């Protein structure tokens, strides 16, 4: 595992995640909700 982080990769390049992925995350953020009941977190996703 240490090799992965110690080796310099020549292929290092600047890039960004595709806009549709960002859009998905923003939609996910709007859809996900947490309800707390007696110190327990319940996750719900509303479409």
């Amino acid at each position, binding site marked *: 595992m240490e090799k*992965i982080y110690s080796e310099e990769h020549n292929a290092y390049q600047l890039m960004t995640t595709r806009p549709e992925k960002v859009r998905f995350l923003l939609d996910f953020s709007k859809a996900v909700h947490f309800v707390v009941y007696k110190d327990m977190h319940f996750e719900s996703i509303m479409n």
Partner: protein
Amino acid sequence: MELQIDDSVLVKDYISGDEKALEILIQRHNQRITSFIYSKVLDRDITEDIFQDTFIKVIKTLKRGSYSEEGKFLPWVMRISHNLIIDHFRRNKRMPKFEGSDDFNIFSVIGDDKLNAEKQIIKNQIDSDLRILIEELPDDQREVLLMRIYRDMSFKEISENTGVSINTALGRMRYALINLRKIIDKNNIVLTN
């Protein structure tokens, strides 16, 4: 010159319900995080997946109110992606990836050992038919066959249990099989799977 809102302020805004704040955070750090992930995994699709999983964790943590690293948003996100990269490599180490080519398809040489539903039904039917045929055998032969096949006993154990010699047990087993074949032939029974 436009003033840049600090990450910590955007995080607070997002926790307070301002979804736009998240968009600014993602756009602001998109290139740095994506490039970091790609520099390790060197695969565009895997990079996208890890980026997505990273921010799903970020979103859930912030929405749950579990975030407690004010002012250190980027290092925290980078640490999450770093952990997911490690998970990715661990998973791949456990499950080596094999990519087939046009000449060779791995699925042509490996298969699922489990029977599918249809074959399982057929096997159950054969087992059931066989038990009926075994009932037709003489008692001494049936006894030896049941001990050997269904209870997986050795002929030594069978001889001890039935009080006959090993040779007698072997002989009874032989005749049991011969007689079973006769019954099958006589009744034109087909046992296949």
